[in-house]
């Protein structure tokens, strides 16, 4: 942005000329997306801040949405109008229809059951289902969820506090004595220095940085997993495996997607103090080797800024004709750009790994894609931003014509097997059409990580199936522990289309033996 020194009138004219050229790129990209997807929007309730914390579908077919200032409102698709159901909630960041017909909402301080007992269409009971967790009043202690597992249990995730601020004088819940003494948190003049000892993100009150399992009827809760930083997205694949993503930052070289199991630790050490078997040592001071041995690595890494900078809700694409061959795949939203990713996880010899690829990527989707919900054939996108990059309002997406894309990607003993939504054109076996950047992200305390040991590689052999719908890509030295980040823009379908989203990155934790 070069300063321009002109009169207001000339400024306006100047802007016209620069706009024309800048807009062209977008128009082209959007035109391609528009050939395959219809992107639209619905209104948000009048007078309500249009930042979304939760979306859910009601049994009567209405859409329930939770908003930043604390309202929950219902949208009637027939009348295209909103009705406020509840208000005055504290930063609601998740909605789920309960088994008993009430609506569950996760607020900063608690998981709440909203009931309309007199049938007037407005909630009159705000019942606390679960609030047995700590709060320091630090702004970063967001609370996400709930999601319901195949076992019927509810799960919520509790953010760590940020060293961007200290703690409030009055806190709620048990304080862990492990780490920087509490009085140092009140030494505000020296907070910059003290905060480095507190940890870039800290979890000194109960269950911060943890995933909590809750009984839906009684509210009884227990610790489920540790090692999280800012886990906004929780979801399940078609087989019921529990996926949770997290946000790039300290101890997060890039944003990870984990497959989460009871009792396991997923890398951010702050929450280790809340494990019942913890030995009392300061997690931040443990040697990296010890933490590395304790942790379960990410199933899928979302390369920072190239794929996602701040991943959000994860849901399954419905297996309906409307979504074609993408049905049953997991998708994840992203805050910093107008993008939704597909995740292609698989288990290889007991180890989870897999690929991420853009599903939708268009400025027309805007940023801040925080909450996702399929209703009928339409994907609804609830946006937010707070003080970060993002967007506002509720967007809609429909698939109108399946684009040429990588459909699946699997690891093989010598490389990867791809399948496509349409047959590959002749020439796809040329090795130069499959360029790969291979790298990994470091597991360490600093914020983020560079792409490490980055190498540009090409396959040693590519074999395309007779029907053109799949390809085997082999490498001379297939190394585990690396991300294989392909750019397939050189491929074409028999219709002459290049992949709509040509970049796909596979996190290879384990090379299959067969």
């Amino acid at each position, binding site marked *: 942005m070069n300063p321009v020194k002109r009169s207001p009138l000339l400024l306006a004219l100047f*802007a016209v000329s620069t*706009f024309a050229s800048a807009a062209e790129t977008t128009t082209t990209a959007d035109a391609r997306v528009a050939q395959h997807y219809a992107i639209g929007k619905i209104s948000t309730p*009048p007078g309500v801040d249009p930042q979304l914390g939760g979306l859910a579908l009601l049994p009567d077919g209405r859409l329930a949405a939770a908003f930043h200032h604390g309202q929950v409102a219902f949208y009637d698709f027939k009348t295209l109008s909103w009705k406020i159901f509840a208000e005055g*909630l*504290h930063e609601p960041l998740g909605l789920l229809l309960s088994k008993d017909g009430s609506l569950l909402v996760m607020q*900063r301080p608690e998981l709440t059951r909203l009931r309309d007992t007199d049938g007037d269409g407005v909630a009159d009971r705000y019942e606390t289902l679960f*609030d047995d967790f700590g709060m320091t009043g630090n702004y970063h202690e967001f609370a996400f969820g709930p999601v319901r597992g195949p076992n019927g249990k509810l799960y919520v995730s509790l953010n760590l506090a940020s060293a961007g601020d200290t703690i*409030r004088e009055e*806190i*709620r819940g048990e304080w862990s004595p492990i780490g920087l003494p509490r009085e140092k948190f009140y030494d505000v003049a020296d907070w910059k220095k003290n905060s480095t000892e507190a940890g870039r993100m800290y979890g000194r009150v109960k269950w911060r940085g943890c995933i909590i399992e809750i009984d839906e009827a009684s509210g009884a809760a227990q610790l489920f997993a540790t090692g999280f930083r800012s886990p906004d997205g929780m979801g399940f694949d078609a087989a019921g495996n529990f996926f949770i993503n997290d946000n790039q930052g300290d101890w997060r070289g890039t944003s990870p997607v984990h497959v989460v199991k009871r009792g396991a630790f997923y890398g951010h050490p702050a929450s280790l103090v809340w494990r019942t078997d913890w030995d009392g040592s300061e997690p931040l001071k443990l040697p990296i080797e010890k933490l590395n041995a304790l942790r379960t690595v990410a199933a899928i890494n979302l390369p920072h800024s190239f794929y996602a900078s701040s991943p959000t809700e994860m849901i399954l694409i419905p297996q309906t004709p409307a979504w074609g061959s993408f049905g049953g795949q997991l998708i994840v939203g992203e805050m910093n750009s107008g993008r939704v990713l597909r995740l292609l996880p698989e288990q290889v010899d007991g180890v989870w790994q897999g690929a991420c690829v853009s599903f939708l990527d268009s400025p027309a989707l805007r940023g801040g894609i925080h909450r996702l919900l399929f209703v009928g054939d339409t994907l609804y996108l609830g946006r937010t931003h707070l003080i970060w990059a993002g967007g506002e309002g509720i967007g809609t997406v429909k698939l109108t014509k399946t684009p040429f894309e990588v459909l699946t990607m699997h690891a093989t003993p010598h490389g990867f097997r791809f399948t496509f939504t349409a047959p590959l054109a002749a020439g796809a076996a040329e090795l130069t059409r499959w360029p790969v950047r291979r790298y990994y992200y470091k597991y360490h305390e600093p914020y983020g990580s560079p792409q490490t040991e980055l190498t540009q590689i090409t396959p040693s052999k590519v074999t395309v199936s007779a029907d053109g719908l799949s390809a085997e890509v082999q490498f001379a030295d297939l190394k585990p522990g690396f991300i294989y980040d392909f750019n397939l823009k050189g491929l074409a379908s028999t219709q002459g289309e290049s992949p709509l989203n040509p970049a796909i990155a596979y996190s290879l934790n384990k090379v299959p033996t067969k």
Partner: protein
Amino acid sequence: MRFFHLIVLALTLTSSGIFAQTLPAPKAKAAPAKKPRSVKMFMRDGLRFEPPRFMAEPGEEIVVEIENNDSTDQTHNFVLLRPGTKDSVVQAALALVEKGPGLEYVPPSADVLVHSRLLTAEGSGSIKFTVPTTPGIYPYVCTFPGHGMIMYGALYAGVTPPPIEKDPNIPPMVAQGAVAGGGKRPFTQRIFMPDAGPAAVAIALVGSQNVCWDAGQCRLRYAWQGSFIDASENWAGNGKILPVLSTKPWWRAPKDVFPLRFGAADSAAPHVKFLGYAVTTLGPVFHYRAGETEVYEHVLPAVGRPGIALRLQIPRATGPVFYRAAADPNAQWTSSAGTWQDDVLTLTPAQAADVTLTLTSALCSP
């Protein structure tokens, strides 16, 4: 990527704060410039700028990043003006008539300091400029025909703004909306509150009283009179900035003292468990367990006197119940039942089943 469709306008104001038609050639700067502060500005449904006002230092370099998020597909611009010129510039924009579209409805006027392009729905852009060095209240307005009378805001440069609900420089509807609940009473808002635990509840009672109730500690914390909380800064940020009370509380509960006791007045404070609240036309009825005892606590305006009332319903007390109202020279507690001694109210189980405590003060006005 989304910024490919941005309209980027970059310009600098002269240090006098008045946009000159002719400006000196840019001077090469030796030191790398500090990254200007970014201010997000949203255009929203109902012809509104969000935020409706913001503060800046005179002479500060800022980038206003503007997004038109109006879901009703309205076109808007952002035009920053010299103090006191809003109405005349809006009139001048209307007077452009058929010349308007060509000028994107920005009248050629020295009162226009900086402006964005016209932004269609979902369009966005940014303007970099130096805040005038002359302290003042600089209006910003949308000059699209018909919008300017409603759609405006104020940049406070080196001037402290008044409480938002009383700010004459922002639209009256917006001023009202900046107060949580938009003036509705009763209204319950869970939010971070000053001088309370992090699981706090703010309640606007019918009338002019407001209270802070602490859901973490299951007790009343303080009461103030007048306008309800201004949560606009809390909501515009990430929750770090606490809401602002319109006046100083006229009563505060002592810190760390839970008032109810069971069995004996000097028994230990029971462990409390918050269970939620019911919404009534007279405000929320909180429900919690104190020890093993269930309590319903209805916060109400006092009847016939300025102040607040607590209707306590303890349906299954097994012995005497004590309410320890801390001594406060400015506040008087009374109750519909029970006996007072040294600021402690003693209730029989039958009285505790439904009793109303009233708190009044010379510090609050009728």
